[in-house]
């Protein structure tokens, strides 16, 4: 009976997405430094810093080397090294450093009519139900999974082969979520069938269909547990409307990324519209992990764009319920209603940029009975000889049990710095051309709960070189 229901619902979702004719998905926004727009993915422990690699690509025949060191008062300094190159059909990167969460290697090579990747893998199939989910029910796609994502995540390590053509072929073997997995996927004309197997005999099937206006996927475990999801985007006048729906068994877990399985049932709608200088964005989502464990989110944001890239954004949002399956009583505290409002302005004359942001979240309307309040100012000044100085100052208050993350732009990564309690954080960063490369030096002073600051520092030097063809 479960299989029959799954087939019907899945078929309906896939047919719905196949019939939808809309615009391809717009590029994903990347959060600005010191922004609160990003949250760590569900598998990241709450209250811990999270680091992720930026997916900036090298030009052909290029080499990049980088050396970094960072430390904190009272802790041993951490050194890191990285090398990347991209040549004719081959690219590779190696990162090394004690305690560096991004340490590891990846090699991409074109061979046997397709692309091979060995090392760190972050694949995405279809909607990601089996491989590459966003985990958050309101997200249309993960920011760190699959090709074209703005960040390179790490779902596992292994070997991955892809061949595109009339018949698409994908094969993968590796270790994901402390499991040895092997996957095979075959597709044509946007449709694909995949099989993922784990040592021990666990199996998951994936059937997916992708069209310019939308996509859908149904995933079934050997036990009969299933999940189906479809998403579509359409243009109506000046507005771009999107919708996605998910259904399935509560016990379904992705073998590769169980922590990103997300809720069993979810519906989300979104709208982006431009009217003159204003961009309007709206989002609504409902989800349920199991009866009694559900959540909802609604948000509205207006962005006004002025001359010289000046912009003003205002937004309101309401959240209720849980975002992930609670692991402790602490998570339950955050399940109550939260009503938030924020305002952000950024702009300034050439050579000087100022960004101001204030965000308040409370239990009641108009963000009263505050649980999280953040005020931030960030200045970036261009100096002579290619130098730049950036100063950011943030004042924050987070009630016990509330999570607060500030995004920091590292040389090669994005860091979501976890903050707790009440305090202030000042970050100074100097960028300068040194030795044919780019030097970044940062100092961070953060005080919380009246304790003395423990300075955190970072040094990074990187250089890119490009091979030039020598004339005969």
């Amino acid at each position, binding site marked *: 009976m479960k299989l029959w229901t799954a087939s019907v619902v899945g078929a309906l979702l896939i047919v719905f997405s196949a019939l939808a004719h809309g615009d391809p998905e717009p590029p994903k926004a990347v959060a600005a430094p010191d922004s609160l727009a990003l949250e760590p993915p569900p598998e990241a422990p709450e209250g811990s810093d999270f680091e992720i690699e930026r997916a900036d690509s090298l030009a052909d025949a290029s080499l990049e080397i980088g050396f970094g060191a960072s430390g904190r008062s009272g802790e041993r300094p951490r050194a890191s090294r990285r090398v990347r190159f991209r040549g004719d059909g081959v690219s590779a990167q190696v990162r090394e450093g004690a305690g560096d969460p991004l340490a590891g290697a990846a090699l991409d090579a074109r061979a046997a009519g397709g692309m091979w990747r060995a090392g760190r893998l972050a694949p995405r199939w279809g909607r990601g139900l089996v491989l590459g989910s966003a985990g958050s029910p309101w997200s249309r796609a993960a920011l760190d999974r699959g090709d074209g994502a703005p960040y390179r995540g790490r779902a596992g390590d292994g070997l991955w082969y892809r061949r595109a053509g009339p018949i698409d072929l994908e094969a993968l073997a590796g270790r994901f979520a402390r499991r040895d997995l092997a996957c095979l996927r075959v597709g044509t004309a946007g449709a694909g069938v995949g099989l993922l197997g784990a040592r021990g005999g666990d199996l998951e099937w994936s059937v997916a269909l992708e069209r310019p206006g939308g996509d859908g996927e149904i995933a079934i475990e050997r036990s009969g547990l299933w999940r189906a999801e479809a998403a579509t985007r359409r243009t109506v006048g000046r507005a771009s409307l999107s919708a996605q729906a998910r259904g399935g068994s509560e016990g379904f877990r992705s073998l590769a990324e169980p922590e990103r399985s997300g809720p069993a049932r979810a519906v989300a709608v979104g709208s982006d519209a431009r009217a003159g200088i204003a961009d309007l964005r709206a989002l609504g989502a409902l989800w349920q992990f199991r009866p009694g464990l559900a959540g909802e989110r609604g948000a509205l944001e207006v962005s006004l764009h002025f001359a010289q890239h000046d912009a003003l954004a205002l937004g309101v949002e309401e959240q209720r319920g849980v975002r992930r399956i609670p692991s402790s009583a602490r998570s339950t505290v955050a399940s109550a209603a939260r009503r938030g409002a924020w305002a952000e302005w950024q*702009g300034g*004359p050439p050579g*000087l940029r*100022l960004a101001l942001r*204030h965000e308040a979240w409370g239990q009641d309307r108009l963000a009263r009975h505050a649980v999280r309040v953040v*005020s*931030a100012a960030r200045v970036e000044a261009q100096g002579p000889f290619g130098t730049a100085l950036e100063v950011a100052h943030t*004042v924050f208050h987070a009630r016990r049990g509330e999570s607060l993350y500030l995004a920091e732009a590292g040389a090669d990564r994005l860091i979501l710095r976890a903050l707790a309690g009440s305090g*202030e954080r000042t970050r100074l960063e100097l960028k300068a051309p040194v030795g044919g490369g780019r030097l970044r030096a940062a100092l961070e002073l953060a005080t919380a709960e009246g304790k003395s600051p423990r300075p955190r520092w970072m040094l990074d030097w990187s250089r890119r070189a490009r091979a030039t063809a020598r004339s005969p």
Partner: protein
Amino acid sequence: MSARLAPPGTLATLATLAFLLRSVSASAQDFASPAPPGSFATPAIFLEHGLPALPAAPAVEAVATSWYGMPELATRAVALCAGWRSARAAAGISRTGGPELGWTTAAFALGVAAQGGGGALRAAARRDADPAPIDAALGPGAGLEVGGGVWVEAGAGITLIASAPQMFTRGGAPPLGRGLEIGASWAMDDLSLRLTRTSARGGAGAAQHEADLALSAGAITVWLEARDLPARGALGLSARARAVTVAGAIESHPVLGQTVRIALMLSRPPAP
């Protein structure tokens, strides 16, 4: 030679007032210049908030503040600033209170200002006047605070400011905790409006909000200030004659009483 001791009652009053002052978030302390909203072209504001003025012409300003009707806790300060091309610098010295409960502050600021925006770093070193000061990391009764500010023109007469005067503190705690101040001012011909929000230092506690409205008629400007926590208001007046500007503001606090700020500034007259 021995210092003359103040009566115990006066000392107790001063100590109580000092404690209350610590709990009040304030937008200024050692160089609290009375200036209409939208104007920060004074050396004292440069030193106090790290907001450099656009004109590079040298200016000198003398400021006196009587805090909450307590002449024993008056502040006297002198500040001067100058600029060369887009570089701006300011220095000043301030004295608050008497020999029993007072302090001396020396401040310095360095920054840049040009059409469209400016910013500066400021530092203030403070030393208690108490002959037996409390030991601190920088020496008995000594304290240091470092911060900065920035302003940019956002067009349509709107100017945005951000000032964090105490990003870094060391040694003896400053008499007033000053958090991040963000605000905007809007100038419409002779009328200007300023809205600011000042976070509580360290993020703990309520933020303070301020709304100011100014009306200019030639060389004379009148302005009103309204603040919350607790609700209170101030009335200010400034007048300019050639190179001399005189300004004053009176603020009424429902608990602590009246604060009077006056300033005298000498600067190059603006071009006609």
